[in-house]
């Protein structure tokens, strides 16, 4: 694939330079470089040439809108990266505007009016499918400054694909969940299983938990127990959570949640109670890393998700691995520059800068090697039990309702049957 692009680039560069008798200086120098150098540097120079062509073809100000998370850390680091990007091309006049949009809502905000949405935006992997289906994402047809297949982890690159085409530039690889705990209160054995965890928490009079009434987390239990949930071609789902294993898992989960110490807080309630010192361990992700490290102080620790008993057997809880991507709007005003900006924001140096500012784990292997924190280590430990999220839109509401039923202690074969019927309902 890569080779094909490069050769295509080379040929057309020749053609372009042959025709362009009055080409700029940059073109001439790269042309000679391309003919004289070895294969490897030819690659560089031909892509450089495409960029040089773009610079030459660019007139007036290049306006690029960039939407990313509204948190202060994100805005600051992205602003700096954009300025650096603009500084790389002194001949071009850039006007890069940053917009603050919550990542969880990115898809909704973009799809309201794709034509008015940002040219470049950051989105989590679970929105990829909806964005592609609405035709909002530009395919990554070629890369000019680095090759993600060489620099980024395979899993991340794959998560940015849909129907075999690459749509997202890998940005972070730490959007999954794991267990935060206070090691001053809980030992390694305590956090190994949900049964031990709830028992210890009851003894301490503290709280532990996981947001069960949310399909994203609930998946981890059923998948861990050995059930399956997969997506079909037409975006409907396959699901066998109503089989014997599923029922056993649901009942086991119901037993765990019936503990006085178990809480299924949403994010707001979690943070409020965490600050009050009530929560000793909770399933969450890097977005709460500051809250947990402040609340636990020197006891701050994180680990893979606990096991839980299904039919008397310990099963490791699974999870969704989460990624963030930078996407280019299919309706972007300056597709070329938007792609270059997206590349710049996701290269090794930028990912490192983002990691340092926000604590989110890079997807770039080089940047990842330099990053280390309890949260990222926990994610790495969980990663062998984590799956790429590929699920059709009909999953979420029934799964949320199933979780609520489990919390209310209403598990039955019928509830599971109904949930599966909803999850697997056909898509028109």
């Amino acid at each position: 694939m890569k080779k094909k692009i490069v050769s295509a680039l080379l040929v057309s560069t020749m053609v372009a330079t042959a025709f362009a008798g009055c080409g700029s200086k940059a073109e001439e120098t790269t042309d000679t470089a391309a003919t004289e150098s070895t294969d490897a540097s030819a690659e560089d120079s031909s892509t450089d040439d495409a960029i040089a062509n773009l610079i030459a073809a660019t007139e007036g100000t290049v306006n690029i809108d960039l939407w990313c998370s509204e948190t202060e850390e994100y805005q600051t680091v992205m602003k700096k990266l954009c300025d650096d990007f603009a500084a790389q091309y002194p001949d071009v006049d850039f006007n890069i505007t940053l917009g603050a949009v919550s990542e969880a809502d990115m898809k909704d905000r973009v799809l309201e009016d794709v034509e008015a949405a940002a040219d470049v935006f950051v989105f989590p992997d679970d929105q990829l499918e909806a964005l592609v289906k609405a035709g909002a994402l530009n395919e990554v047809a070629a890369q000019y400054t680095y090759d993600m297949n060489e620099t980024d982890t395979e899993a991340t690159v794959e998560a940015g694909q849909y129907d075999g085409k690459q749509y997202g530039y890998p940005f972070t690889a730490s959007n999954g969940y794991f267990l935060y705990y206070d090691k001053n209160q809980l030992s390694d054995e305590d956090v190994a299983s949900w049964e031990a965890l709830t028992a210890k928490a009851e003894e301490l009079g503290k709280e532990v938990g996981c947001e069960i009434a949310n399909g994203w987390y609930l998946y981890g239990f059923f998948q861990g127990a050995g059930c399956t949930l997969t997506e079909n071609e037409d975006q409907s789902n396959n699901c066998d959570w109503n089989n014997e294993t599923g029922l056993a898992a649901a009942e086991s989960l119901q037993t765990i949640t019936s503990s006085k110490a178990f809480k299924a807080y949403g994010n707001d309630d979690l943070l409020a109670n965490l600050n009050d010192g009530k929560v000793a361990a909770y399933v969450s992700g890097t977005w709460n890393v500051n809250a947990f490290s402040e609340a636990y102080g020197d006891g701050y620790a994180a680990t893979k998700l606990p096991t839980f008993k299904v039919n008397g057997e310990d099963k490791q809880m699974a999870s969704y691995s989460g990624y963030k991507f930078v996407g280019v709007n299919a309706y972007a005003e300056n597709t070329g520059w938007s792609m270059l900006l997206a590349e710049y924001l996701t290269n090794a140096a930028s990912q490192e800068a983002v990691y340092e500012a926000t604590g989110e784990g890079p997807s770039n292997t080089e940047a990842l090697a330099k990053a280390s924190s309890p949260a990222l280590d926990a994610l790495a430990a969980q990663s062998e039990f984590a799956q790429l999220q590929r699920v059709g839109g009909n999953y979420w509401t029934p799964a949320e309702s199933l979780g609520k039923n489990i919390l209310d202690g209403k598990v039955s074969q019928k509830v599971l049957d109904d949930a599966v019927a909803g999850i697997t309902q056909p898509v028109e």
Partner: protein
Amino acid sequence: MKKIGNYFKDFGQAVVHGDIWVKLSLVIMGAGYFGRKQFVRGILMTLLEVGVLASIFGVFAPYLSKLNTLGTVQREEVFDIVTMKKTVNDYDNSLLILLYGIIAILVIIAFIVLYLQNIKAVYRIQKMSENGEHINNIKDDIASFKNERFHITLLTLPSIGVILINIIPILFMVCIAFTNYDENHQPPSYLFTWVGFKNFVNLFTTSQTITFGYAFIRVLIWTLVWAVLATATTFLGGILLAQFINHEDTKFKGMWRTLFVITIGIPQFVTLLLISKMFGDNGIVNTFCSNVGILDFFKNIGLLNAGDACIPFLSRPIWAHITIILVNIWVGIPYQMLVATGILMNIPSDQIESAKIDGANKFQIFWKITMPYVMFITGPSLIQSVIGNINNFNVIYLLTYNYQTTNMAMANSHANEVDLLITWLFRLTNEYSNFKMASVIGIVTFVVCAALSLLTFSRMIGGDKEGVYR
């Protein structure tokens, strides 16, 4: 039918009997006025004609011609990896075709009516001049807009606003209900097209996979119960509170009123959100209740199961329904009190005086004089407020935006027990991009409202009650 027949008959007569100026008006609409030396009118009319025709052929024609299919050319893009430029074909946008098509049809209808009226008016002027009557000059025309045509002066701008902001969007969304506009057919990248009544059939279907029918009935019932209860409680409460504050024995009337009105001052999305936090499963009220022992009390009297960890104020059916109604009373009474205060102060005092002299007691005065008077003024708005409550998005959405249903059949159609039709369709559009079903639900909501009000409002403004208090 006969009226329409006459309409065209008049037009035919005007054409047949009209003189050269009238006939010329068939082509140049201002001609008839030029013939009678009404130059300003003539120029305006001709300009209007040119403008409308230009916009129809210049702007609307391409959209209008595709209205039957809503577009056939899907967007295709080719990215050139060398020049880094993208070329896109000339694609159709179903959404714009529909929208522009609707506007074009409205413009054409309005133009035809104007055209016919114009010929008739020109013919009328011809007759007047034949009879030697006075023909209005521009000054007279302007003066007439301050007098016998004052209603036109008053209503023109509001009507334009209503057409733009209300009628066109409504027509548009009604049309959507007959298309397959959903997450798999989103313009501008993809096309949607007409599908007839399929979506309506779906709404009333209940099977294991399509549960719209099941959810719809339940949502509809709660919507109606809510609308009636919410309106009745706040309306009565507001009047009583206003009466209470206006009573001669009450000191510091202004202060009391202000205290209640402060709650209006703070936007609903702030107060309601706070309240939803307070009454949440882990909120302050629950903490308080379990500390004081109310939680155990509820368990003892059987309102809650022994295993419940909190009072599910906003997280279980019935509980949530009651909480919502109570919170709405909190929200609504200050508004109603304000309205009632304004009205109560205008009650004809002579009626009350004479009733007092006749020996009527306070309750009799309230029910026999105050209430009829208040009902007379606010009656029509009461129906509006029932309809407003059917469409009351804020209270329900802000209080229950993270409500989770345990009813699988509801969940499968993205509904829940506390949803009104309006919040349901909002989530369908906002979170699931299911515009076609949302439109169908919208139309049904509209039909419900229309049916409700037809029963009552014809009596309110249709009857001859308007003059009673004059």
